[in-house]
């Protein structure tokens, strides 16, 4: 069953278009930087971008920071929102279930495929921007956000940690979209619903009056991956981010399963 869903994901033109678009934005930004050599002043604009002009090795981190607020969540919400609702709208859900594929298994497989898509997307963005950064700006020893230069093999490890952290954050988005996907027969509604949740979270995050709930907002620790480039690594927010996403994923998946396993499939 997993192989079936992977075949569907990989054979879908949308998957590849999404990946290209995701990698496209950081590439455009990098090319502008190279041509004009006008970088944002340090401390302004997206994280790492000011440092990229001097060091292409930081472009993967800058690229992830660029796509993280909107692009990446949109892509993940579309794919995850499609998982059950898309099958329902297409009418293929009933045929999968009478094949039979158990509802629990179908949900797991869909989640796994979305997780794989997330990893593909994040790795693709990081990989293409690493190659591009190397070409445009050259690779030098990476200075940490805190000042001292990071050892070379250490920098690679930190990029891997960043990729994993961003992917894990996106799994939270996927869980919201998958949960909504079991309630509606419209993949669009599921994807937009998930985005609405994220936008609400981002709005509340900058609102001082909502400070009491801030630590529980799903988007709160997304950009904490910047802390991976401090020397030494500042783990506190990273740990909180990982734990918070884990709770969101667990609760939403349980709710998605409870709904999907007990619902009448009338699509």
């Amino acid at each position: 069953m997993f192989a079936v869903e992977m075949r569907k994901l990989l054979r879908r033109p949308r998957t590849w278009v999404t990946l290209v678009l995701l990698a496209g934005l950081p590439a455009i930004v990098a090319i502008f930087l190279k041509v004009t050599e006008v970088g944002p002043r340090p401390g302004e604009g997206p994280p790492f971008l000011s440092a990229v002009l001097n060091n292409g090795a930081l472009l993967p981190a800058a690229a992830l920071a660029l796509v993280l607020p909107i692009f990446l969540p949109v892509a993940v919400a579309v794919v995850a929102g499609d998982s059950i609702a898309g099958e329902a709208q297409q009418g293929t859900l009933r045929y999968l279930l009478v094949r039979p594929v158990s509802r629990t298994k179908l949900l797991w497989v869909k989640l796994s495929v979305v997780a794989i898509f997330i990893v593909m997307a994040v790795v693709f963005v990081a990989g293409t921007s690493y190659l591009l950064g190397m070409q445009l700006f050259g690779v030098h020893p990476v200075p940490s956000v805190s000042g001292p230069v990071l050892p070379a093999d250490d920098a690679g490890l930190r990029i891997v940690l960043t990729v994993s952290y961003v992917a894990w954050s996106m799994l939270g988005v996927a869980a919201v979209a998958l949960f909504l996907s079991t309630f509606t027969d419209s993949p669009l509604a599921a994807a937009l619903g998930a985005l609405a949740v994220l936008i609400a979270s981002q709005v509340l995050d900058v609102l001082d009056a909502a400070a009491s709930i801030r630590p529980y907002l799903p988007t709160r620790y997304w950009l904490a991956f910047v802390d991976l480039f401090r020397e030494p690594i500042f783990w506190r927010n990273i740990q909180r981010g990982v734990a918070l996403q884990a709770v969101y994923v667990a609760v939403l998946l349980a709710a998605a399963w409870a709904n999907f396993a007990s619902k009448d499939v009338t699509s």
Partner: protein
Amino acid sequence: MTSVIRTEGLTKRYAGGVLAVDGLNLDVPQGERYGFLGPNGSGKTTTVRMLLGLVYPSAGRVELLGHPMPRAAKHALPRVGALVEGPAFVPHLSGRVNLSLIDQAGPGGGRRTRKTRVDGVLEQVGLDAIGARPVKAYSLGMRQRLGLAAALLRAPELLVLDEPTNGLDPAGIREVRDLLTALNEQGTTVFLSSHLLAEVEALCTSAAIVHRGRLVEQARVDDLLVPTGRLRVTTPQTQLACDVVAATGTAHVLEVDGSVLIVQLDGLAASDLNARLVQGGVAVDELVVERPTLEDVFLDRTGESVHSVEADAEADVLEVGRVRG
């Protein structure tokens, strides 16, 4: 005889309070071609969905191939092929790839024999020449055939088909009917849900009639279509014929319409009356034992026309439009 489908008091009340199916007791014996007949909106599709474990009953029980549904779905469903409310496929993939994905999704059926199976069912439904075109380029009839092909993939013991000839041209309908008859003769039980009386009459050996979610009749088609005891006699000599009929003492003429006499036999054999007519010098053009159609049976049992649910018929048209789009 063993039952492949048995329901007891099957009831479905949807969340909105709509009572779609109300205390249905069905019994489909093995080896039958069973017609499940009712107008649009009579609860046919909800019943089919409950048989297959897609919709959960509010009350009552379903047994499919001896297994309780939906609890033992994983034991029963691999032996069942289904077509529910129109076929559905991934639109940008070809029919062949779609079938291969469906085949791969279910239990049983190894990878090495997959191509053989897919080619086999495509040939069975007459789609072996479709090539690599994506399903979105198919006509409604071709999709219907592909849906049937998907249902046949595991050589199922039971076929549950909801309106299988929808969208097919007359030649296609005939082919599907021949295919289903052939499969049935090889031992497959066919459960065919339809609002088309003629289709059920032409194909089925047993039939159930549902109306507003309730079972109004369940019997062998031969028993439903017993002669009415009336005879239609066509002759140019109507007056003479009337006299002969009157002289029998038992039979009598109900109606004369042009050159056609409707005769109530009242126990007299048709052959007997024929002999007397000829002996009495009446030239007979045609002599027909009147049998009811399923439509007559339906009207008689429900007091309503099959085509009475206009709103639902419109909904069907919309459904077709959506599938095409």
